[in-house]
């Protein structure tokens, strides 16, 4: 115990903030979900509506849940990431679902790359959402990381023709209806 007079020892966390310069630093957890409706005529399967997706998930966040840094040296390198790519896919796609007109749409993982944002490197997961027929809209149900970090946010951008929709996905706003 570092704080004997107290019944517990939370005081250490408060120490740092008990200063005039106690601005707390940030870099919270975000993932970026960009969806683009495939133009009519581009689809090989005309009986389906296809939305292309790119999902950028921070390597820092993935390391916390999956342990990407195999040798524990504090650096994730290409080889380590490559080894974990199937595991990343398997994990991430468990937490995203799509449906249209009451029926599940299929999420088809395509490929995985690396993208960079201002706060670091991200795994970029490319996928297609395939919904039967030509629904007027569909629903995304997003649950990534919420169980382990309620402050995680999914920053969603949807391009549908000339229309652009944006939303911030959170535990309180995890399902979003999007026009097609």
């Amino acid at each position, binding site marked *: 115990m*570092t704080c004997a007079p107290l*019944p517990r020892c939370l005081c*250490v966390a408060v120490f740092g903030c*008990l200063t005039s310069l106690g601005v707390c630093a*940030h870099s919270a957890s975000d993932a970026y979900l960009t969806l683009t409706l495939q133009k009519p005529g581009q689809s090989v399967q005309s009986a389906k509506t296809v939305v292309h997706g790119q999902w950028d998930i921070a390597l820092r966040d993935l390391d916390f849940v999956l342990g990407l840094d195999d040798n524990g040296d504090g650096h994730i390198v290409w080889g380590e990431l490559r080894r974990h790519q199937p595991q990343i896919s398997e994990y991430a796609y468990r937490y995203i679902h799509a449906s249209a007109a009451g029926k599940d749409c299929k999420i088809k993982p395509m490929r995985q790359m690396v993208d960079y944002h201002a706060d670091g490197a991200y795994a970029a997961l490319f996928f297609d959402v395939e919904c039967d027929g030509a629904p007027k809209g569909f629903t995304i149900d997003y649950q990534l990381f919420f169980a382990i*970090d309620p402050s995680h946010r999914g920053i969603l951008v949807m391009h549908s023709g000339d229309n652009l929709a944006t939303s911030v996905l959170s535990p309180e706003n995890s399902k979003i209806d999007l026009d097609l």
Partner: protein
Amino acid sequence: MLQQVPAAADPQVRQMRLLRAALDKDQGSLSTAEQLAQVYIDFGRQLGDAHYAGYAEAVLRPWLTQAAPPASALVDYATILQYRHQFAEARAQLKRALAAQPGSGQAWLTLATIDMVQGDYPAATHDCSQVAAGGGFQLGIACVGNLRSYLGQAKQSLVLLGQLQGVGPGSSPTYQAWIEGLLAEVCERLGDWTQAETHYRKALGLVPADNFLQVAYADFLLDRGRPEEVLTLLRDSSQSDTAFLRLALAKAALHSSDAQLYTWIMAARFEALAARGSDYFGREQVRFALYLQHNPQVALDLATRNWQVQRAPWDLRVFLEAADAAHQPHAASPALRFLHETKLEDPVIATLAQRLESQLQDRVGKAP
């Protein structure tokens, strides 16, 4: 290398993993959950990484959602909310905790912190007396010692805090670094730069990677015209947004070839924060707008808004700096009033205030 992450050999990372495994085994153990939450909060604070506050919140969630959550879990949660600058929500949790456990020194200390950050010093005075009653004499002295430095009694602060050097709860490095950090700030209030630097160095000698201390010392160095030392100090801390702003300011001060790049990345980070709906970086955003984007009007708007939420000396200072740069001394009137009421000592703030007040008087003199 693609990404830097906490190394497995880090003792705190090891501790986190052990506690996580223990909690997975015994999911109903509040004490294990609180220990883990505490390690997360502390680690995130040191690193300047808000992810860990989220991890801590998730760990406490099963108890927070109970009809009558344990007071200690409410205080933990309030600490997390305070860390995110969600002050009103943090106060609400502390109120619940104190209703259940009126003598919780920890709850009073957290409340004192919030009252000080928001400039409600009469309330903080009361909180500190309760800290002493419930949390022990030494924490009470630390609370009062810190508080007095905002009330024109910085010399008394120095005496009070000086008594805590080398003693205190457990005398852990973290505790001692906290006291040294407070002393450094009090010395800055008094314009004693030599002593301030000695205390900063002592504090960083104890906890070298602490984000708060690093950033505070970086500001000290920037003020003293020593930006090249900021680059060395924060070399490994660029993942923290607050540290990154100081790196960008240092690069700009040095007219480095990559200064523009740093400004651009900082802008992107603020945009990312805005995209997620976060709005608790007022002070940093003011400095960014003022000194890196050279937009005094935007800086003044941000500073005015920030003043509604936070009233620590740096909030006051950036408010005055923005009003001065925007040639709108009247805009800073609330801050100037606050300065006179509280009698805050700070040579940098005093000089700024004097300039703005003489501008205000000139305008009154020139009025028809």
